[in-house]
């Protein structure tokens, strides 16, 4: 069955992980949804996330998180990569901002979309 989709192969959105126009991580806290600003380093297919220590202190190892890196304002410029996964601790990262806690997101699901690629495709459901 055919449907309309915005989804693209995440590889095609990899430039977002290089430029990191806007990035945040969401997780579930005691008082509901939490979201923290992050910086992202995509290295050797690993999603390394730099978080302010205040935000990282709320996370526990293996906790489920969602990383969103998105770009664009106008409708057909909207693009994003969405990584659902689990938070893992990471050792020191040299050469990066020392005022961040660096963690790794081990992905369980990665989705990317690009409104300029809207098209008919086989139904993904």
């Amino acid at each position, binding site marked *: 069955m055919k*449907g309309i989709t915005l989804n693209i192969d995440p590889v095609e959105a990899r430039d977002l992980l290089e430029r990191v126009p*806007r990035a945040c991580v969401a997780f*579930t806290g005691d008082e509901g949804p939490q979201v923290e600003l992050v910086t992202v380093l995509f290295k050797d297919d690993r999603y390394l996330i730099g978080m302010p220590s205040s935000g990282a202190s709320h996370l526990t190892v293996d906790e*489920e998180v969602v990383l969103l890196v998105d770009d664009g*304002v106008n409708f*057909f*410029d909207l693009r994003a990569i969405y990584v659902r996964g689990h938070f893992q601790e990471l*050792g020191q990262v040299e050469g990066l901002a020392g005022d*961040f806690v660096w963690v790794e997101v081990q992905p369980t699901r990665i989705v990317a979309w690009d409104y300029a690629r809207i098209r008919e495709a086989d139904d993904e459901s």
Partner: protein
Amino acid sequence: MMNPDDPAVVDILRRAMVARIATVSRNGRPHVNPLYFVCRNGKIYLGTVERTLAALNVTANPRVTILFNIESQPNDRRVLRIRGSATVRTDSKLCRWYVVRDLRKYIMTRSGVGNTLAHVRLLPAVRRFVSSGEKGKECVLEVRPETAEFLTAPKRVGNKENKAVS
């Protein structure tokens, strides 16, 4: 924490274009996605459709946290974080009002028209996407802000700047 009606908060809301809204599912799983929004009378209205994760999550758990920044000023690293409670509104009057405001804010502008004209060949697919109802009917997430605070976006760290992972 700041009051959501603080002038600095109102100013960011007036100039921001894309909201990143975090929600939690019935099972406690996190989600965040970017949505267009407009404001009225101290509330924030985000457009989506009924069967998106954002709408389903708000139905299950009204708590939301939203980030806003001024996209037109990339050197302004302030990011507004608002926490509040949301409801899914499906009444046609509000949805129609939202669509009109959304079109004025995002499409009926110089850059919006230019962007649309540059992708005019895609409009039939957009029309099909909107009218298909694959993800349910259009709805609006109505957010009542409770607290606001300013964060500072981290400086961008490209892979080229990376040195080593120990």
